[in-house]
């Protein structure tokens, strides 16, 4: 029996009520995060990766609900936990760094105030002790503590992201969810932030869930990866294996669409078509309308996750065990 | 489909002798108008606003054909005295005023002047405001400063008082044209501000720079790029201006500065106030014209708000 993971998502279903119907944003998703590990959630926009992460700490907009599944953490099921108890878990155990930190920070409050707020919500701490913690955190992420009384708009994009990271670490959480942490930044800053995250992970023994549509970011930083498509998991396994030997046609398509620096100077093949409409997903396998290897059965059967290697699974009928 | 885009549109275009390219643009324009109309009807507030306004406009138009007494006709009792301030009854659903005139009829007929003044004054205000906003925003510099100071000054003066002064000097009451003109000349401020802000933001956009770089003249840039981006905003804003104009006219009428042969709702209310209707409890006299005013203003406000949301993509995300 394997030791229980730090956090385990089990058959999670999150739906949204909209005027046009129910959007099945996350439709039966399962994965595990071990202590000290980093998991990447990858996929196109709208595939459900952010919604999965938000569902963990229940930060969904008003019309979203977790309608099924379990989220096991520290012996509790976060999906059914009372709001007041969940609030104690937020930030102190599981913190989140949002993308586009432009608006994620309150524009009329000083940066030091916002970081200190994170601390004082969960611990009763004297104000000068909080000040010292704020200074420490800023130094940790590479910001001069003298700037702690500045407002968010006085920082550049990359520095704002660092502030968000500092704020996320304020309560020494066990898990950090990074939602597209570098998407809105230019490439050089991207590298810096990713390096920072890596260093912090090692120093503070953090576990991380990294969400990105940029496979290169995930490939660089994550131990495990879950490729999501149409609200479901298409492929899940150790990052190296998934990227070097992808088992799901979707993953294969994604990897193929990366231009190879040593390869021919042609436009790489891309995946035709559009992501599925989550109001009425296609019957059978959700990827079949765009899949070059689809066959008749794909239109009818929605494949479960088949084992294709050690801890490596893919939801494709082609990987079904031949009986 | 309220705007002709199908075969009727085609016939229209043939008759107007439009060139092929123009015909294309016409079709597209009509289609867009229909889209907008649909959006407005389906927008909760827009639909209600449109409904209210349709009701009142129809009423105003068909007034001469309704089986109601003439608004200036004074009913008399048997002995030749005015049948004054009678309470609501079957014959006079809203009662009569101090000269025995039927109030329901006056309210229905009053809609014509109230609406016409409002519409025409706001057109003037819109045109003026757009011009000022365009000049101010596009050329900037000293023109902008000067226009903005003028705007500030006009915005700050209690123009209502000035209007009344004007009325007094001109012999006590204002004629219809003067009223329309003066309301129009004093209501352009807000539109100018809004247009200026929009022009400033559009001016910075890339396609305008490109147009300039390719040698287009200022006028053509204004016409082809800036104006189409500004016009929808102006339109939505004008609808709201109409509400303000109607309000202004009724206030002027109420204060007695309007030629009373131009029967509007404000005039009816002025009669009511002059006859101490409130103190004497003639409720229909006060409530009915007022409700008409309120609902028409409400209609324009709702419509303007809906149009603003529809035509301004940023607001739609809410």
């Amino acid at each position: 029996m394997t030791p229980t993971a730090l956090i385990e998502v089990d058959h999670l279903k999150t739906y949204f009520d909209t005027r046009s119907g129910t959007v099945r944003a996350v439709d039966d998703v399962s994965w595990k995060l071990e202590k000290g590990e980093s998991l990447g959630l990858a996929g196109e926009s709208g595939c459900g990766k952010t919604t999965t992460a938000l569902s963990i700490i229940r930060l969904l907009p008003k019309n979203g609900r977790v309608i099924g599944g379990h989220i096991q953490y520290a012996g509790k099921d976060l999906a059914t936990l009372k709001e007041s108890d969940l609030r104690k878990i937020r930030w102190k155990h599981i913190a989140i760094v949002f993308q586009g930190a432009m608006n994620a920070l309150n524009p009329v409050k000083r940066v030091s105030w916002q970081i200190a707020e994170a601390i004082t919500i969960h611990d009763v701490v004297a104000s000068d002790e909080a000040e010292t913690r704020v200074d420490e955190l800023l130094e940790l992420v590479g910001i001069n503590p003298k700037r702690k009384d500045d407002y968010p708009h006085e920082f550049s994009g990359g520095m704002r992201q660092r502030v968000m990271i500092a704020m996320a670490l304020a309560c020494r959480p066990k898990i950090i969810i990074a939602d597209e942490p570098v998407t809105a930044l230019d490439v050089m800053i991207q590298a810096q932030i990713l390096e920072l995250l890596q260093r912090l992970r090692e120093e503070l023994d953090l576990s991380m869930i990294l969400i990105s549509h940029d496979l290169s970011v995930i490939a660089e930083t994550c131990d495990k990866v879950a490729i999501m498509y149409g609200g479901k998991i298409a492929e899940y396994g150790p990052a190296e294996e998934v990227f070097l030997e992808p088992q799901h046609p979707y993953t294969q398509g994604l990897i193929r669409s990366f231009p190879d620096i040593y390869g021919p100077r042609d436009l790489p093949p891309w995946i035709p078509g559009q992501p599925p409409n989550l109001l009425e997903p296609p019957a059978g396998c959700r990827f079949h309308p765009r899949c070059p290897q689809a066959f008749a059965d794909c239109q009818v059967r929605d494949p479960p996750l088949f084992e294709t290697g050690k801890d490596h699974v893919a939801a494709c009928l082609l990987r079904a065990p031949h009986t | 489909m309220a705007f002709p885009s199908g075969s009727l549109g085609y016939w229209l275009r043939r008759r107007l002798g439009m060139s092929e390219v123009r015909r294309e643009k016409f079709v597209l324009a009509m289609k867009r108008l229909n889209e907008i109309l649909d959006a407005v009807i389906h927008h909760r507030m827009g639909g209600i606003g449109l409904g209210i306004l349709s009701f009142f406009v129809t009423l105003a138009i068909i007034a001469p054909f309704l089986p109601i007494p003439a608004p200036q006709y004074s009913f008399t009792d048997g002995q030749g005295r005015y049948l004054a301030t009678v309470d609501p009854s079957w014959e006079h659903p809203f009662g009569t005023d101090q000269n025995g005139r039927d109030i329901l009829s006056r309210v229905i007929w009053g809609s014509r002047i109230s609406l016409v003044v409002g519409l025409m004054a706001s057109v003037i205000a819109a045109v003026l405001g757009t011009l000022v906003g365009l000049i101010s925003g596009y050329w900037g510099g000293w023109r902008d400063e000067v226009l903005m100071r003028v705007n500030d000054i006009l915005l700050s003066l209690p123009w209502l008082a000035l209007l009344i002064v004007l009325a007094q000097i001109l012999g006590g009451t204002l004629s219809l044209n003067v009223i329309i003109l003066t309301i129009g000349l004093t209501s352009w401020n807000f539109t100018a501000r809004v247009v200026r802000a929009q022009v400033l933001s559009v001016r910075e956009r890339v396609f305008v720079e490109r147009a300039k770089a390719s040698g287009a003249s200022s006028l053509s840039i204004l016409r082809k790029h800036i104006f189409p981006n500004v016009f929808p905003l102006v339109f939505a804003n004008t609808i709201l201006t109409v509400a303000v104009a109607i309000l202004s006219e009724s206030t002027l009428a109420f204060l007695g500065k309007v030629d009373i042969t131009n029967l509007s709702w404000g005039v009816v209310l002025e009669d009511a106030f002059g006859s101490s209707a409130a103190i004497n409890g003639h409720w229909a006299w006060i409530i009915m014209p007022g409700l008409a005013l309120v609902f028409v203003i409400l209609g324009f406000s709702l419509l303007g708000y809906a149009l603003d949301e529809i035509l301004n993509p940023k607001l739609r995300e809410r």
Partner: protein
Amino acid sequence: MSEIQRVILRRLRNAMITIFGIITLNFFLINVMGNPLDLISRAPNVSPDIRKNTCIRLGLCDQDGNALDLLTRFVNYIQNFFTGNMGTSFNWKDTPVVDVIIPALGWTLLLIGTSTVITIIIGMVLGAISAQQRGKPFDIAATGFSLFFYGMPFFWLALMMQLGFTKQEFGLNWWPVFPSGQQYDFTIPVFNWGNIDHVMNALYHIVLPAATLSLGTVAGVSLVMRNSLIDAMTEDYVVTARAKGLPERLILRRHVLPNGLPPMVTLIALDMAFIFGGAYQVEYVFSYRGIGWVTIEAINAFDFPVLQFVVVLGGIAVVVANFVADLILLKIDPRIKVA
């Protein structure tokens, strides 16, 4: 000189220009539209002597009784303005304009002050609850109510209040009744707080006008507050705050409100002109002897000195209000730097 100081100075300069423009425009509008001398001449049976004296007294002629031209009158006007000499009222015989207006101003300020305070408190609370209960019955009811009262003509609202609250309606003897105006002695200065009877009587006469003004403006305040708060609520930093584990109540107080308030300040400043317009109408209907009432009487009597001063006062008040609002905004919103 710091950035902020430079901005403030620039705003001050603009305000000064505007005020000067108001003063100038005011003179020309009122005097060019009609020569006061002509109007006085219309009065029959006026001997040339009286005419001459009146002319001199009103500053329209010089010592010898010759009519002064417009430019000279303008220069005198500016000089007088800055020495505080506003002239003498035509209408209220021989009372300096200042003495006619200042007491009336006191009453109007009392009226506007009371109703603005009520409006702001009720409007903001209504807007805040509406924003929080967005989409629920309270919100729909409150927003519907606000839309209905938004843009409602003040004079009609005043008439309705008179209709409803000056007599016992429906024979109910607990129905609140307030005076419709006229009976009150407005010459007793407003700041005579010592006399309790006087104070109570004054309050009694203020209820209806203040209620009318409040009802007319609360709608706008509540609607803008609601929209402003909803805007703030849908921002990302609110999600961040929730992610930090803050309870909803604190999110509202610490994050939503501070971001939602700045637009309110602008709105209230802009509303000042609107409220003044409304006050005129309300005072007229209730015969409440404030500035509005004085103005309308002055207009009917061609009392130009009074009119000049009133218009200028109104304009300056609006400019000052806007300037103060700008200053407040600069203080509370750290994002605003340059105009």
